[in-house]
């Protein structure tokens, strides 16, 4: 049991409507009946009543992406439940509805249309394609979209009103990781492999720019659909090309399949495999070939393992998603949302956004997220990328890299204490 | 030649059909047909194309739905299920030979035996091959590569290997040369007589039926009429 639904009223209304539509269709008779939902009383803001705050998310709950996505909203739900058990936020309980979009942008948009008039804010979920599909609609409606996992630059660059994300874009991550790799192992040739997550072309081109400006070279790149079953051909290409680094921006289980294919074909690069936060997922840990562990370096949005002090660490421990970075991100994001709501004096969408935009080095989830900063023009919160390595069944931080959207920022990484 | 020990019983009442009605949708093909085939009897059914000859055999085999006042073999009703009908010892050699073309002749015979639930395949095979020795040289060949006459011979053997009490043959003469028709008819009838197997033989070629059968019926307008086999003109009139 993961998600509680609040749908009985709609169900009844819709049932009547469908029955009527069918009846009308079949015998072209009948009379109109009552249907639809009547909206709540007079409240200052959509989705906020004296005792409830309605939040919603459109999430990939079915299909190939479900396993790596669903834990984030599930964990958020756990956190909201905890907050509610402790009395809610200023006396208001959080009502959180999650609808499935199957990673289908059209379905996501349909879900969002249903939310705009009844929910206060959207909680970010998985998926660059879905985020790209819905952000304009949300932005136009002035509905906050808090902390999606998104890799599409146009969603947040330039900053769209209402759309705020914590995680750096994949293109910035590949750039950072190449920089890190060159610092650690010296410059060399890179081969880039990506799933079409976000703007994968810029993920490739940014890695290339950094490599070439850092004295290395770019050998080739390959694009594989998410859920590709057999990565052997790409492993063979890499073996033939014999690069110093493999740079990848791939989903969790795709990363594992790919790394395993590299191991099977003796195709691991000389220096390192450098990945983005998309790979930092439980699905990677559960299925990668440990023979590759010491060659794999991923950029991570969160500190791993997380601080035992953090509420989320405790909340998730022992459950289905203990150690799953995606769940941690989901829970910590929920923490940030609750914090933002608490800090907002009069709860309207505009005030909430103003609160978040005013954050500067705000420690919203200590021990998981590094402190976050937003501004009216900068809607990406995190300024630090952790470099992690898989160590058995968990990831461990080995370095911290400052992350900046400034291409020429040249601050170097520091090894983790 | 000796009759094998497990040869069919010659007691019983054979096939009895009364008031059989069969149709395809709205089109009624048989309108209350009655027919008997005594054990070991060789009965010919003549009639032009479309008269319902094949339909009659398919109905007996349990392939088609029907209504009838009586449709029994040795006094027990025949089910509408080919497996059960074959089990009762009523075996159908279909029109056009219907060889399993990619199987060898030997394998075709085996399939006949499997369907007929023959316990001792060796013995059944010996018995049939002894009576139809022309098949022996073809055993290893693919059935599809045989000539029409050879195929017809194999089709009959495939039916006989199931050790039937009544063999039903549909259009033995179809597409065969007169000499082939003559030789296959003769060998089939001789084998049936030797084994004591009844034969219900449907054919367009009334003369070949008249030559070999104990009794002849004519299928016309969906019912069976007896034919006087001694009257050549009557035979000739079948198609007028």
């Amino acid at each position, binding site marked *: 049991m993961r998600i509680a639904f609040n749908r009985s009223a*709609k*169900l009844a209304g*819709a049932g009547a*409507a469908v029955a009527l*539509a069918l009846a009308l*269709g079949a015998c*072209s008779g009948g009379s*109109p*009946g009552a*249907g*639809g*939902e009547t909206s709540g009383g007079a409240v200052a803001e959509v989705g906020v009543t004296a005792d409830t705050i309605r939040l919603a998310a459109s999430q990939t709950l*079915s299909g190939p992406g479900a396993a790596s996505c669903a834990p984030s909203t599930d964990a958020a739900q756990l956190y909201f439940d905890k907050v509610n058990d402790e009395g809610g936020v200023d006396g208001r309980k959080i009502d959180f509805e999650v609808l*499935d979009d*199957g*990673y289908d*942008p*059209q379905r996501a948009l*349909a879900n969002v*249309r249903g939310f*705009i008039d009844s929910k206060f804010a959207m909680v970010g979920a998985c998926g660059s*394609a879905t985020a790209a*599909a819905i952000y304009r609609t949300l932005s136009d409606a002035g509905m906050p979209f808090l902390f999606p996992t998104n890799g*599409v630059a146009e969603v947040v660059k330039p900053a769209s009103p209402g759309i705020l994300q914590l995680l750096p874009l994949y293109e910035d991550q590949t750039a950072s990781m190449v920089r890190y790799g060159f610092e650690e192992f010296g410059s060399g040739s890179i081969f880039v492999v990506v799933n079409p997550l*976000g703007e*994968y*072309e810029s993920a490739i081109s940014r890695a290339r720019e950094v490599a070439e400006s850092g004295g290395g070279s770019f050998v080739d790149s390959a*694009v594989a*659909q998410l859920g590709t079953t057999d990565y052997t051909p790409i492993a063979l290409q890499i073996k033939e090309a014999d690069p110093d680094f493999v740079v990848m921006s791939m989903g969790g289980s795709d990363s594992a399949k790919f790394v395993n294919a590299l191991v099977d074909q003796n195709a691991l690069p000389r220096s390192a495999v450098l990945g983005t936060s998309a790979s930092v997922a439980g699905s990677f840990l559960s299925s990668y070939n440990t023979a590759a562990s010491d060659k794999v370096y991923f950029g991570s949005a969160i500190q791993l393992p997380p601080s035992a002090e953090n509420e989320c660490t405790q909340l998730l421990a022992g459950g289905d998603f203990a150690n799953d970075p995606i769940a941690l991100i989901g829970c910590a994001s929920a923490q940030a949302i609750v914090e933002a709501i608490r800090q907002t004096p009069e709860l309207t969408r505009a005030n909430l956004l103003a609160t978040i935009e005013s954050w500067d080095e705000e420690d919203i989830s200590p021990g998981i997220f590094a402190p976050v900063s937003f501004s009216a023009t900068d809607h990406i919160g995190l300024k630090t990328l952790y470099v992690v390595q898989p160590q058995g069944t968990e990831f461990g931080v080995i370095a911290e890299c400052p992350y900046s959207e400034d291409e020429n920022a040249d601050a170097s990484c520091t090894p983790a204490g | 030649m000796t009759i094998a020990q497990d040869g069919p019983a010659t007691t019983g009442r054979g096939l009895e059909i009364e008031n059989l009605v069969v149709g*395809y*949708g*709205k*089109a*009624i*093909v048989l309108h209350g047909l009655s027919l008997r085939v005594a054990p070991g009897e060789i009965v010919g059914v003549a009639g*032009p*194309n*479309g*008269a319902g000859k094949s339909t009659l055999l398919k109905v007996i085999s349990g392939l088609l739905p029907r209504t009838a006042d009586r449709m029994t073999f040795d006094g027990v009703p025949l089910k509408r299920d080919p497996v059960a009908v074959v089990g009762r010892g009523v075996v159908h050699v279909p029109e056009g*030979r219907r*060889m399993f073309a990619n199987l060898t002749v030997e394998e075709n015979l085996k399939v006949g035996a499997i369907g007929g639930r023959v316990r001792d395949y060796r013995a059944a095979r010996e018995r049939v091959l002894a009576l139809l020795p022309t098949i022996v040289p073809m055993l290893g060949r693919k059935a*599809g590569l045989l000539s*029409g006459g050879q*195929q*017809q011979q194999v089709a009959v053997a495939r039916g006989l290997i199931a050790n039937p009490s009544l063999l039903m043959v549909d*259009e033995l003469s179809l*597409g*065969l*040369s*007169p*000499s*082939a028709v003559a030789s296959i008819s003769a060998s089939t009838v001789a084998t049936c007589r030797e084994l004591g197997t009844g034969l219900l033989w449907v054919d*367009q070629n*009334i*003369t070949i039926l008249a*030559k070999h059968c104990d009794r002849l019926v004519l299928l016309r*307008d969906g019912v069976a009429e007896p034919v006087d086999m001694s009257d050549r003109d009557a035979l*000739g009139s079948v*198609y*007028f």
Partner: protein
Amino acid sequence: MIIGDAKNRTLVPSLVIAGGVTVAGLALPLDTSLEYTLTAAIVWAIAAIGLDVLVGFTGQVSFGQAAFVAIGAYATSALRIHLGLPTPIAVILGVGATGAIALLLGSVVVRYRIFGIATATLFFGYLVVTALMGDVLRPVFGGANGLAVPEFELVGSHGKPYLILVCAVLIVVVYLTCSLMDSQTGRALRLVKSNEAVAAAVGIRVSRMKMLSFVYCCILAAIAGVLYSGIVGYLGPEGFGIKQSVNIFAMLVVGGAGTVGGPILGALLVTILPGYLLRDGHISAIVFAAVLLLFLILLPEGIYGLGQRVGQWLVRVFPPLGRLSRRRARAAARSVRHDPDAATGTVGGASRAVDERPEAEAGIPALEIDGLEVKFGDFIALSDVDVRIRAGSVHAIIGPNGAGKTTLLNAVSGLYVPSRGDIRVFGASTRGVAPHRIRQRGVVRTFQTPAIVPDLDVLDNVKLGLDADEKGSFWADLLGRVATRRRERALEAEAQWALDAVGIDESRRSLLAKNLDLSEQKRVEIARGLVGHARLLLLDEPTAGLSVKQMESLGATLKDVHARFGLTIMVISHHIGFILDIADEMTVLDYGRVIGNGEPAEVLARPLIAATFMGVEAEAADAPGATVGTEGA
């Protein structure tokens, strides 16, 4: 057969369904989400109606319908966004592009049976999604991140105005599709569904009709795509994958194939049930699959079929309802019937008089066959066959089963290509001429098992004999009665005339053909041959399965038709009596060779012929082809 028979005259019920949905959608107070879901359901219904034409009426299959929705949506949107074209022009170009792609794919896949078409369309669907996500088209279509679609002018992107637009399109689509399916084109499609070889022999260009159906199916998908792009406002490749194609197929199955109106009901159920009522992805997926399976197993006719059955039951329970509907049917029949002049007017009818056959006087034979050989692999079915049929005569072909008689007819009507020899019809060689062209020269054949369309009524079956090939009538057929009334009236008159000629009682003419008895079906087939400029009638065993009485009456009909219209008839039969009754000349075939030719009574008297045909024992060792039969498997 394919998922059940197609229904006839679906226009009224389908319009009622479409109108009902429209009224319900506009009148009911729907919340945003349900309104969106309903609009989307109607959009998918349009794509499902397209698929119905292909599957339910033409008997083909496509598991890639969503891909064509995607192509229509993407093409139109890209033209609007990148070239800034005005919406109407972008729509026309986008839908046209989809049609062109459908034409290309169709030209390959329609030649294949179901397995191949299913695989190819499924694969195409997968490929389209892959291509839309891929690198190459990314600058145009946005790749995996998709494409934001600007709102449409006037109707916006959602709400009642958009719903009105979508419903209006639905109603137009229903009208056009029903009109098309009840027209000559629709009848031709149904014949293709029931038997391609027969369709070819009736003069229909089978591949072309299949292509037409495939393209129509894809065009409707493209129109659905355009509407969909407007309502979602955003296009991403994931939503058009195989899963959505299967969904569309499910709408068809659940609603009822071959009905036009059914897919609308199916689309409502399939879209609203999982999309709105069951919001849990897992439960809705399980329910969806279970519903689909239940319909396939227990109710393959779909909701529409169920409704029809309930309707019939109501009529039985409340007889007044039945009287009402019968009166309506009679009124409908009256509105097109009895225009005695129409027949002669446009289509031909009584115009075929003996004196209009100059070749009869010129002495040009109706059919000349020289040295014909037909081979199937190594098996020679016909060899060195010479036949000559005088124009205006009745010529019988006899011979034992397997002698090659039907093969000869198939060769004459162009279904088999001879390996050697020549066939000339009214003096012109048919070498390399397609079956439908041979039919256009007036060669008409019937089949041993009556090759009628079981789900059309008798009159419509006969109309198929007249210009069933589209020949530019497609556009008129789309417009329905408005455009085709005159033509339909002429067809009707001609068909009535032919049915009169073969003696089918008037009361039987509005029955579905599958409800006739065998001899009636054979007459209907002959009537179909009589209409539409028949000059040479090839009858394959018209007497098979008939009672003596029926045979006599059929013989009388043929003699009458022959005498009145001077048709040349080539007839295969086993009934010597029948042949002696009607034939002027006769050819005897055995083992694919001609063993006798001449006046029937005289030929039959020859001992050799008697031996061969009637099996009268003769010393036939010298009969041609006396080697042990060579017919292969």
